[in-house]
């Protein structure tokens, strides 16, 4: 179940979350930089999902689904949400809250993954 790549992926996710925090410090709507960070986190989360199981996998998949909603690549509903972002129909405060939720969820995944890594050392 556990592979050598997991600590590396988790480190990367922690770094992405930290970069999102810096964007939130001076948030002014969803920029290309933020979309890029979300794209990077999606790639790493997918990789983590393939290598994990149980609650970590479940939480990781939920977060991937939330990120996809903003990225317009899943369903009609996602497209509507994405268009609303692009046309600034969703106000900046709501956008900030959406990004804040993703940020917190990212750290929850990182923390759970850390626990998995620690547990694996005793196996």
């Amino acid at each position, binding site marked *: 179940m*556990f*592979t*050598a790549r997991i*600590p*590396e992926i988790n480190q990367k996710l*922690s770094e992405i*979350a*930290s970069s999102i*925090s*810096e964007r*939130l*410090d*001076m948030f002014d709507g969803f920029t290309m930089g933020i979309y890029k960070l979300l794209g990077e986190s999606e790639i790493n989360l997918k990789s983590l999902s393939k290598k994990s199981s149980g*609650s970590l996998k479940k939480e990781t998949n939920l977060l991937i689904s939330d990120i996809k909603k903003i990225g317009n690549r899943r369903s009609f509903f996602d497209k509507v949400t994405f268009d609303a972002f692009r046309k600034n129909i969703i106000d900046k405060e709501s956008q900030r809250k959406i990004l*804040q939720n993703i*940020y*917190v969820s990212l*750290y*929850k995944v*990182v*923390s*759970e993954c*850390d*626990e998995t*890594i620690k547990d694996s*050392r005793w196996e």
Partner: protein
Amino acid sequence: MEEKRDKNIEAIAKIIELTRANSLKWHSVNNLDVQKKSNDIISYVFSTSYKKKILRIFKRQYQGRYQDINTLAIFARIASPISASKKSELRWYEEVILELVDGKGTSLWAFPKEDILNDLLKTIKYKVSGADDLINSLLEE
């Protein structure tokens, strides 16, 4: 356990949000106020109060035995005797500590270690330095 960990992360994220919104005002504190072990290096000490509780945050650098959690590194240590000697090496590590303190600065309870604490310290430094005010006034000119 998992629920408690999630709650801690949500609480720290909330402190970051309150700091960004200037609802929590942090101020710099003398690093001599922090109790430490002899070789520790304490820096960036800030304090604030929230609902009659005093919060203090700081960066702690400390020496500890070399430990690489990367599984590849563990295999590498088995394969290479030179790497194995690193096991007994002392290295510098750093962590950010967020704690509740009493009026005399004595630590009462510390939040568990989480990566998100690094972001809280960065946000506090950003706010206390007045960087956002400077950027905004530069853009307005």
